[in-house]
Every structure is written in C-alpha cells, then in structure tokens.
C-alpha cells in the first residue's frame, strides 16, 4: 500500500491542481493576515472557508482523481498487489496531498506572521486539524461514490449533490425540524443531528473555541454538559475520527466486491 500511496502522492503533488490549491490557500492566508492585520478575524474567515470549501474541493478532487486514474488502476489490479492496498494507497495519496497543500498553504503565511508566538496558535491548529479531517472524510466519501458509479458524470453529480446536501440542505432541514418541533425537548436531537453531518460536527468543534460564550447561553442540561466541559471536544473529535474511518471501510468493502 505504501508504494501505491507514494506514487499517487507524488503524481498528485506534481499536478497543476495541487499547485492551484496550494497557491489559493497561500494567497488567502497572506491576504487575511497581512491586509487585515487581525488574527482573530482571519481565524473566523478561515473557519468559514474550511467548513465549506474543503469538503467541496475534497469531493471534486477525489472523484476526478478516481475517474482519471481508472485505467491506471486497472493496470495495477493486474499486478501482484492486494486490491484494498491499491485503493487505500490512492485514497491516502489524494487526501494526503490535499492536506499537505492546506497545511503548507495556510501554515506558511501564519508562521511568517509570527503566529507561533501568538496565543491564536491553538485555534489555528484546531482549524488545520479539522480541515485535515474534512479532507480525509470527503475524499473518502467521493471515492466511495466514484467506485460505486461506473458512469463518470453520474458519479460526479452524486458527489457534488452530496456536498450540497451536507453543506447547505442538511442544515436547512435541521433548522426546519427544530422549529417545527420546538415544543419538545430538542437538545439531544440537535446534538445527534450535528454528529450525523461531518461538516456540522467540524463547525461545532471550531465553535467550541470561537463562540463558547454563545453556546453556553442555552438552557438544556445536555447542552451544558456537552459544551461546558471537555466532553464536547473529546466526543466531537471521536466522532470525526469515526467519520473518517467509515468511508475508508466502505471503500475497502466496495473495492473487494467490484469488477473491473
């Protein structure tokens, strides 16, 4: 697997798109920090970027890579290599190179700005960690979608729909159900609904840092326990990890049963 990972990874980091992605973050980081001169604001803007853009880019990149390397995958499948190794290797190659672009692209301007000495370092690290998680999750999901759909256009469509659903529609439905059922105790429901969407989950994880004062304004005891203690952070991280593992298992499962 490591060999495949290595080749996919190097193949990708030499591709034009990785540079575009890297330069995008680099520019974003520099603009936010050096034009605004305000770390707190930069962190808030970055959060919006991370929870919306990273899943989108992860999804599109994953699907694109999968379909573009289909023939190459077939070449590999005829080689004495375990099937799951091929897909895992490619998956980690894509997710890894995207994560590297993200970390370097944002990390360089922040380090140059002197973040290491500022106390925003924890918030910033959390942003990057969450971003990495989202990259792995959405590349994973897009691989699962791509491997389940021979038709490239269909697969692409499903992947973008999935992103649209999780990034926007889900929250709309979530909001509506909260308002419709407002007479009932909803704190367990809303926490569970949050956990079921990796984008919401990442958002909450960052909110725990940025907006804890607002989150603690709500009465529910479960909320209070969740947000008021380290429990929230640990549970969110745990579930995010679960979210990362699930597509990988799904990919392994699909890969084992697929004909090429």
């Amino acid at each position, binding site marked *: 697997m490591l*060999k*495949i990972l290595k080749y996919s990874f190097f*193949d990708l980091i030499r591709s034009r798109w990785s540079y575009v992605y890297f330069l995008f973050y680099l520019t974003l980081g520099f603009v936010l920090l050096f034009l605004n001169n305000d770390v707190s604001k930069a962190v808030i803007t970055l959060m919006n970027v991370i929870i919306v853009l990273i899943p989108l880019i992860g999804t599109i990149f994953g699907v694109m890579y999968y379909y573009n390397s289909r023939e190459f995958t*077939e*070449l590999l*499948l005829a080689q*004495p290599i375990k099937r799951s190794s091929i897909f895992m290797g490619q998956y980690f190659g894509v997710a890894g190179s995207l994560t590297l672009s993200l970390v370097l692209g944002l990390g360089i301007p922040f380090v140059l700005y002197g973040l290491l000495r500022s106390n925003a370092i924890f918030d910033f690290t959390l942003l990057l960690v969450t971003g990495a998680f989202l990259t792995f999750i959405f590349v994973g999901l897009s691989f699962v979608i791509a491997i389940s759909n021979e038709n490239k256009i269909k697969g692409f469509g499903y992947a973008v729909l999935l992103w649209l659903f999780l990034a926007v529609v889900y929250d709309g439905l979530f909001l509506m159900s909260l308002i419709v059922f407002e007479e009932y105790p909803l704190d367990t429901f809303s926490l569970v609904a949050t956990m079921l969407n990796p984008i919401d989950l990442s958002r909450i994880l960052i909110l725990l840092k940025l907006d804890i004062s607002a989150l603690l304004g709500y009465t529910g005891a479960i909320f209070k326990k969740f947000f008021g203690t380290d429990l929230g952070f640990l549970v969110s991280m745990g579930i995010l990890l679960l979210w990362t593992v699930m597509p990988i298992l799904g990919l392994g499962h699909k890969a084992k049963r697929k004909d*090429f």
Partner: protein
Amino acid sequence: MTITIKDLHKQFGKNQVLKGVDLTIDKGQIYAILGPNGSGKTTLIKSILGMVLPDKGHITVLDKPIKKQWKYRKQIDYLPQIANFPPNIKVKELIHMIKDLRNSPSAEKELIDLFGLGPFLDKKLSTLSGGTKQKVNIVLTFMFESPLLILDEPTTGLDPMALIRLKELIQREKAQGKTILITSHIMQFVEEMADKILYLLEGEIYFKGNIKELLEQTGAPDFEHAIAALTTTGSHA
C-alpha cells in the same frame, strides 16, 4: 496444467456474460481467445486476473485456487487493452514504478532498445502517441519472467516494424516454455501465432481446438472464413 476453469458464471446487471465456461489451458502453448464483440473474452481474462469476481465457478492458476488471492498474479504478465497511464509521470518513472511494485528481476533495457523507446524515456506519458504508449505497455508486460502471459489486443496502434518485433518476442517467450493467452481482432496475427483457438460465443466455449480442426469442422476455405462461419452458425444455433 496452467489454468483450469470450471463452470464459470458471471452476470453484469441483467446481462449474463459467462454461462458456465469450462476450460483448461496447458503449459507452453499459445492460445487465442476469439469471439464476437460482447462474447465475454475480456471478462474471461479479467476473471483469471481476479479483476472480475465470478458469481459462480472455480478457477485455479498453476494448481492453486485464486479466490481472494493476489500473490499468484506475480506469475502473470498482463497487457491491458487500452494503456492509459498516469499523465504526470515519465516513461522512465513508470517502468521504475512497475518494477518497484512487482519487486521481480526485469529485462527492460533490451526491450527499450528493441522498440526504440530510448528517446522517450524522459517524456511524460501524456505527451506520447497511442502507438508509443502501446510500446511502453509491451515493455512493461514483457520485462518480467512470469510463466503466464496474457495479452489483450497487443497489436493496437503498432507500426509494421514494431509488430514484427512483437511477434518475435511472443515466439521467444513461447520457446522459453511460457503459456500465452492472446485476444485479437487481427485474424492474420492469430493465425500466425496461435497454437489453439478458443472460441467464445454467448458466454460459453463454442469451439476449442487448433486451426486445422477448425477448418475441418467448418469446411471453410481459410481461417478468417472459418471464424465468420462459427459466428453465424453460432448465432443461428
């Protein structure tokens, strides 16, 4: 016996592609797998390679069952039908990479010279023409010393010179006692190379034997007509 296949079934959606194929492939011979489009040639090959998972049936390669195995592929060199390689890497790197992945001794230098690929080694694969890509594909397949060779449409895009080289190469491999499976649409090529013909029709082995037997059975004047005859009789039957 190099390969045995028993009662192989495979269905894609509603399309029953293989309907109980029984087959044995003996060592040291060249087999041509023929059949009309959609008769299951590629499916059969891919089943042997483990890329297609049969619904039912049993395959052994070199006397070992292949189900859920992957190490046996080390004994097979496969030339895929369409060679589409990662665009961003160079020919040299691709060769190096396949060598690295297979971890077996290889003789790529001689083959590179044979097909005149030297000037292309430092070029990215995306810049190569179809024929050159096919040459690279051939190099990747023939550079290892595996007892079983599977060639899916090996002649695609080759110029006459390269075709001659390929034929020589196949003969040489045969002389070394290797078993070779070929699919091709070029009947002349098949006639020239194959010891045995396997004719697949509607998911079953419709004919198995050498060219002489084929001609006798169909009563056709030459190989090409014999194949055509097989196809028509088959579809009427």
